[in-house]
């Protein structure tokens, strides 16, 4: 879909479906916000007063530890319970009433599952993040679709590596983020064996030819592949299980298309080719398809989510994934 056609389609959907619901959604948002802030304004001062009282009592030893633990737990509950009780239903209804129709309107046949995500195995099997092993995985806002012969899906993903050190009371938990953002999976149009990974090129950008020498060292993603397109090489570094396979996947046209995708998204992109699939990870740093609570919900919010769909659904067309002139049909 061209940018103009997409903008027109968004405008039509906004006028027909979203606009009429904006007032009621904002009323619901205000009620939710007032309820949460109301509970907080009662519970938090009370708990702060209790905390101040505990400090005055000058408790020490195990009794002191116990009292402050209970107080912290109380404060945590006081902040979380009203939020869960009021925000979650508002969030659910926002997604059902406005986000699901928005996604259906983007393209016929697309589906939206707010509580579902790309599967953990799928994320792990992609081999896109090999620096740390995956321990914690969660996700939401799964979108499924099919353009021509190419099925695709994507969702938000939050993947972490959690380790612990020490023992007993000195035990410490360390959390390392692996990936937070949107993760996209599509059927690739060529059959291939092995893997190829297109990663952001930090070393060459920072250190020039010295950086390139460093990249030639052993990588968990395979051997370094130096490709012919200088613009592509400036943005990305490619690792693959084989030099020929990498070039079979990354034809000259594909390199230009990936470069154009990077320029359009203006985000840090990781692209993987494995299991006859294409994977794209965009570290967006935002929680998408969510309502706002403390600011008015306006047209711009829906336009922002429409732009996310433009990027991900557009990948199939932008990378010509529907071109089926090879043995894979």
């Amino acid at each position, binding site marked *: 879909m061209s940018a103009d056609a997409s903008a027109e389609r968004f405008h039509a959907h906004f006028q027909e479906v979203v606009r009429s619901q904006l007032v009621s959604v904002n009323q619901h948002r205000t009620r939710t916000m007032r309820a949460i802030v109301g509970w907080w304004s009662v519970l938090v001062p009370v708990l702060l007063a209790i905390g101040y009282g505990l400090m005055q009592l000058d408790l020490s030893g195990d009794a002191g530890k116990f009292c402050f633990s209970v107080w912290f737990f109380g404060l945590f509950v006081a902040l979380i319970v009203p939020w869960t009780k009021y925000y979650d239903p508002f969030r659910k209804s926002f997604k059902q009433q406005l986000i699901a129709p928005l996604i259906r309107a983007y393209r016929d046949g697309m589906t939206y599952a707010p509580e579902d995500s790309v599967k953990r195995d799928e994320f792990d099997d992609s081999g896109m993040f090999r620096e740390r092993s995956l321990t914690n995985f969660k996700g939401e806002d799964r979108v499924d679709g099919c353009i021509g012969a190419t099925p695709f899906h994507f969702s938000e993903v939050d993947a972490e590596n959690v380790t612990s050190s020490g023992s007993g009371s000195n035990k410490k938990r360390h959390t390392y983020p692996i990936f937070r953002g949107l993760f996209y999976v599509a059927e690739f149009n*060529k*059959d291939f064996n092995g893997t190829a990974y297109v990663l952001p090129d930090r070393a060459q950008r920072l250190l020039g030819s010295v950086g390139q020498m460093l990249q030639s060292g052993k990588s968990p993603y395979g051997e370094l592949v*130096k490709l*012919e397109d200088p613009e592509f090489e400036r943005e990305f570094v490619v690792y693959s299980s084989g*030099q*020929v*396979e*990498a*070039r*079979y996947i990354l*034809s*000259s*046209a594909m390199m230009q298309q990936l470069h154009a995708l990077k320029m359009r998204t203006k985000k840090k992109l990781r692209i993987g080719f494995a299991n006859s699939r294409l994977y794209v990870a965009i570290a967006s740093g935002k929680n998408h398809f969510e309502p706002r609570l403390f600011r008015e919900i306006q047209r711009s919010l829906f336009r922002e989510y429409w732009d996310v769909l433009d990027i991900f659904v557009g990948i199939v067309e932008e990378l*010509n994934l529907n*071109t089926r*002139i*090879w*043995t894979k*049909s």
Partner: protein
Amino acid sequence: MACFAPGGLGADAMTTTWWLIGGGALALVVIGMFNTLVRRRNAADNAFAAVDAYLTMRYDLIPNLVATVKAYAQHERETLALVVEQRQQALAGNLDVDARVRLDNSIAHGVQRLMALGEAYPELKASHNFQQLQRALNEVEERISAARRAFNACVLELNNAVDMFPINLVAGIAGFKRRAFFEAPEFARGAVRV
């Protein structure tokens, strides 16, 4: 001082030691350069073998293609006979690299002409067999192109080593030479971008 004390190393011995250390370091550098050249030459040979493997896949498809085209386009006997003959020459394998490259380019051109016959013979174009062959050939051609690009990348690395100082000194003595790049045949330039 300890080193000039009786039993310590004299000035001559020190000089000899430094010469030995310098000579050893130089030998290591030369060995490293030689090994780099060998690695790059082997990589180029290996990449050439990959091109060869995919060219063989193309040859394997030709008999099927000829049989399919013959069934629908009997007036194209000359083109068919030429492709078959060229395939046999290539399989005979007694050609030098330049002649082989020329022959492969000619075969590629012939195969492309056979595939283009689909436009002139609608029944041929509609045939399931022809469509399957078209897909298989597209895949093989793209793999050949990828293997050639990989070969050219290896040749670039080798040629850089052969030309650059000081590794070119080792290359000259050891008889390493520049290699020619694969160039896309004229008819294949400007092919459909996918």
